[in-house]
């Protein structure tokens, strides 16, 4: 294990995180977004493992007659185990929610889903949206007043 391979591995970890974040920001499909999150998590876990790595280290199992000097650090490994378990749970939950959203709105496109959710919230609240993608500001009619006008009290 040379310096070069270590730098390559660190680069891989940071690159995976970068790829994952790019996917999270640019992705529109819900499944790809979940996939991007799991890629970024893989990168973060690799980074954590590399922090505990030692050249020529052996597995951190203490047996009689074995010195502790040349073992890899076990703490990051325990942390990565926890992080993997948490990540799996969160991804399963996200996929379940994506299926529910697909069943409700008939699409997996994040932008369409967001638009439909916003209009649903607006409808439930009884308000009209105050921005529109179809009509830019200046061409659309003014939004209704905040408080409905009523007849003056007689």
């Amino acid at each position: 294990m040379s310096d070069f391979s270590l730098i390559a591995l660190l680069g891989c970890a940071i690159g995976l995180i970068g790829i994952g974040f790019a996917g999270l920001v640019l992705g529109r499909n819900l499944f790809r977004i979940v996939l991007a999150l799991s890629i970024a998590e893989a990168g973060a876990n690799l980074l954590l493992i590399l922090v505990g790595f030692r050249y020529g280290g052996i597995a951190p199992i203490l047996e009689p007659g074995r010195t502790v000097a040349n073992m890899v650090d076990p703490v990051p490994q325990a942390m990565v185990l926890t992080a993997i378990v948490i990540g799996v749970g969160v991804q399963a939950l996200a996929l379940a929610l994506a299926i529910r959203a697909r069943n409700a709105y008939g699409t997996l496109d994040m932008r369409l889903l967001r638009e439909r959710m916003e209009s649903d919230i607006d409808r439930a609240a009884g308000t009209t949206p105050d921005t529109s993608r179809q009509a830019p500001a200046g061409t659309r009619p003014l939004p209704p007043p905040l408080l409905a006008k009523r007849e003056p009290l007689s």
Partner: protein
Amino acid sequence: MIVLVLVLPLLAAFLLPLMPGMLRRLIGPAALLAVAGIGIDLATITFQQPVVLAVGGFLPPLGIVFQADAVSAVMVVAVALLTLLLWPWQGDDASVLDRKQALTLILAAACSGLAVSGDIFNVYVFYELAAVASYGLASGNNAAAKVAAFRYVILGGIGSLLAQVGITLLYFRTGTLNLAHLAELAPHTLYDPLGMSAFLLILLGFGVKAELFLVNTWAPEVYATAETRVSGLLAGLVSKLVLIILVRVLTLIFAMTEAHLAFLVLGMLGTLTGELAAYRARDVRRMLAWSSIGQLGMAFVAFSIPGPAGMAAGLAVALHHLIAKPALFLLAERWGGSLASLTGAARKSPIAAGLFVLFVLSLLGVPPLPGFWAKYLLLTGLAAQPAGLWWLAGAVVLLTTAIEAVYLFRVIGALYTRDDSQESQPAVNVASSGILAVVLVGAGLASPILAAPLDRMAAQLADAPSYVARILPALPMPPDSTMPPPGPVPSPDPMQPPGPTQGVTP
């Protein structure tokens, strides 16, 4: 005893589906009542002397530590009582109700865990536990809630990722995860650009749940679609516990000016954007959601003031918001519609409207109510700092209070507009928010008495050296423990970075 505050709700959550009949409905509230009792007992102890518990008899730098100071004890009591007030007593379906109650219990357990944890990786685990429970609670029963919850899961996942990388950097530089040990090592190892970036990663990562600026876009969507009960829990409770954790990281580990300024600037931006967005909101629930972002920004600004004065101001703002916001969300349950539909609601439900006015006045800071003292402490704390960003923050706080007054009085105006022709408004359940109103008014009346405990909490929170001193050196061994203090494998020397930088080839 400290362990019980998180073990009891967790155990109750897992036992709940196994219980027969009536017991199933009682086990949750019983566990929460027990936690409240333990919390009050802890408070009586910790206001004199904070408590430390080394789990399993392993001593702190290696073992895991739970610690309870006055802030933790008060937070544990708040968790238990607020969860009881917002408890899902009844629902349409028995199995749905079971799940809701179990998730609420897990949320309470995770919040208690955040309050007493003394180890940053444990904090991460409890944070994730709270996050997963709140994802489940947020994905209510309508379609919009599913989409909102999905977006919340993704943003929460990004936050956990950032926090995990931040913790990795901390461990890389120091080789420890214990907060007290980190505090001891920080001046030599973490006061540099890498340490600062670790702080920013942790701040932004955990800040997702504390509705910090930049990572708070989930809040209006989730609060508008989830049940108001859940919105109250998330805005009132979870955000405060995460905030306290971030403050501990700030005061213990990163007690440098740049970190305080990061708190200040992000808090200021959060206040400004939150209140301006609330001004534009056209329905009560999203208005309250944006306003809670603004209020939490104000708490960040308060905690950014160095020293006990800032801690006192921050605790006052946070605790006041913890009482006021869930009550406002509960009152808005039946008034979820647009502002126009609220016209004349005060005549149909005068008590609810009166309570709404009371909480709004306290939120704005009208003198006899506790909100006034919170803002007073905040502004005097900011004014005592050298001029510059801190005074700008004071100006921002005053400006946003004016904006708050405009949009909240718009609601009150609608409530009390005379209106004879409307169909009948549904009645509002005022029991829980009534209790919170009693607490609020009581706190306002008892403010001379409450000043001393608040100062004590603030002093304990700000006093990093004694936090380190009580956890690290001479923790007495439990008498029944026969284990040698270190874990099975002695870890590498914590002063040396354990990572690849050592570069020893065999």
